[in-house]
C-alpha cells in the first residue's frame, strides 16, 4: 500500500490541537510535580512521624505501581467514592503526583547535601528552622537539582501519552483519531513523534535558560 504523507495536511489541525493539549498537560503536571516534590521532600525530612508515615506510604504507592494503573484509579476508581474528575484534571493529578514522588527523592538528597553552615548562619541571625528552610536551605537545594529534575520533566512529557487511555485527546490520541479516519498509522505516528520531539526541544531550551539563570548564584 506504500506510504502517502499527502494525507497529513487534512488532519494537521487535529494533531496540532493534540500537541497543544500535550503541552498543557505537561506544563500543569510539571508544575504540580515540582512544587509537590518540594513539599513531599520537606515532609519526608522534617515532619513528625505521624504525618511523615502516611506520606511515605503514598510515595511508596506512587513509585511502586504503574503510572497507567494510577491514572485508571484516579479517573475511573475515584468516581465510586464520589470524586468525579474531568479527564484532563485526573491526568494532571496522576502525572503530577507520580513525578512529584520522583522529584521529592532528588530534592531530599539535595537538601541533605546543603552545607550545614547555611542553616547555622540563618539560625544565628534569628530565623526559625522553618524560615531558614524556606528562605535558605530549600532554594539552594532546588537550584542544585534542576538538571536531574529537568530529566524527570522530559520523562513526564513522554509519559503524558498515557493519559490518552482515559480519553484526554492529547497528541497520541489525536494521532490515533486521524489514523482511524485514514488508516495511515505510519504517517501519523511519525507526525506525532515529530511533534513530541519539537516539544522536547522547547522544554530543553527552557531548562537551559533556567540553569543558566541560577548558575551565577552558586
Amino acid at each position, binding site marked *: 500500500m506504500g506510504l502517502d504523507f499527502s494525507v497529513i495536511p487534512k488532519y494537521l489541525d487535529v494533531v496540532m490541537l493534540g500537541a497543544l493539549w500535550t503541552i498543557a498537560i505537561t506544563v500543569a503536571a510539571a508544575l504540580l510535580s515540582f512544587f509537590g516534590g518540594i513539599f513531599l521532600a520537606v515532609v519526608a525530612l522534617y515532619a513528625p512521624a505521624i504525618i511523615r508515615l502516611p506520606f511515605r506510604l503514598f510515595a511508596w504507592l506512587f513509585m511502586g505501581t504503574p503510572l497507567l494503573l494510577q491514572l485508571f484509579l484516579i479517573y475511573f476508581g475515584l468516581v465510586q467514592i464520589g470524586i468525579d474528575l474531568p479527564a484532563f484534571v485526573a491526568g494532571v493529578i496522576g502525572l503530577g503526583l507520580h513525578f512529584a514522588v520522583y522529584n521529592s527523592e532528588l530534592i531530599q538528597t539535595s537538601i541533605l547535601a546543603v552545607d550545614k*553552615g547555611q542553616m547555622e548562619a540563618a*539560625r544565628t*541571625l*534569628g530565623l*526559625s528552622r522553618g524560615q531558614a528552610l524556606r528562605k535558605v536551605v530549600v532554594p*539552594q537545594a532546588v537550584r542544585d537539582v534542576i538538571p536531574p529534575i529537568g530529566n524527570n520533566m522530559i520523562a513526564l512529557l513522554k509519559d503524558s501519552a498515557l493519559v490518552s487511555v482515559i480519553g484526554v485527546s492529547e497528541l497520541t490520541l489525536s494521532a490515533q483519531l486521524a489514523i482511524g479516519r485514514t488508516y495511515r498509522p505510519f504517517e501519523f505516528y511519525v507526525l506525532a513523534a515529530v511533534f513530541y520531539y519539537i516539544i522536547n526541544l522547547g522544554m530543553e531550551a527552557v531548562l537551559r535558560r533556567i540553569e543558566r539563570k541560577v548558575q*551565577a548564584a*552558586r
Partner: protein
Amino acid sequence: MTEQKPFVDIRHAQKSYGALEVLKDISLQVHRGEIVAIIGPSGSGKSTLLRAINDLDPLSGGEVWLEDTQVNKTLPHRQYEKHINQVRQNIGMVFQHFNLFHHLTVRENITLAPKLLKGISDEEANKLAEEQLNKVGMIERIDYYPSQLSGGQKQRVAIARALAMKPKVMLFDEATSALDPELVEEVNQVMKALAEEHMTMIIVTHEMGFAESVCDRVLFMDQGVVVEEGPPEVMFRNPQNERTKNFLRKHLADANK
C-alpha cells in the same frame, strides 16, 4: 573593672558528648564594650564555648546570660524556639567559612533577616545594607553573588550581614582561619574598626598578633578548661602557666616557619 554587671555571663558551662567532656565548668564574664580573645589548641573547646553563647551548641550544664536574659533557659520546645530566635537577633556571629547564602546577592544576604524578622520595608532594608557595606568597604559589590567574591570579601560581607541585625555582641569563630594570608588583614581591619566603636566582641582566634593589638583580655583554653587568662600584654609577654607557655612557643615556631 568595677562592680559593673557583666554583659555576657557564662556560669559553670559544662558540655559533654557522651563520655567526652569538652567543657569543664567554665565561667566567663564579658562586660559591655569589652573585647575578649579565646586562644588555645584545636579541640580545646574554645569554639564550643563560643557556640554555646547563642545556643548553637547547647550546653549540658550551666547558664548563659545576655544582659538580663538567660539564653539557655528551660522552656517547652515551641516557647524555647521563639525565645532563642529573639535572643539570637542580639548576638551576631561570624564563621570560619563565612556561610554566606550562595543563592542570594550580597544585598539580599544582608537584607534577608532584617526584612523577615524586623518587618522593615525594602527601602529601609536597602539603606541598611548600603550603610553596613560602606562600613566594611564592600559597597561596590552590593549586587554580586558570593561566588564572585574573594574569601576576605566574603568575610567582610558576612560581618556586615551580622551587623545589620544591630547585635549587642559579636562572636567571631576563627573568622580569618580559612583565608589566604594576604586576605587576613582586610578582615582584621574591619574587626579593628568595630573595636574602636566599642562593640562587645568575643573572638576565637589563632591570630596572636591581632589578639594582642585589639583585645582587652585573653583566655587560654586547653582540654575544656580556662588554663589562664589576663590582659594581652601579660598573656603574650609573660604567661605564668606552663601549658600557656608551651602553646605560645609552639604557635610562634609554627608562625615563623
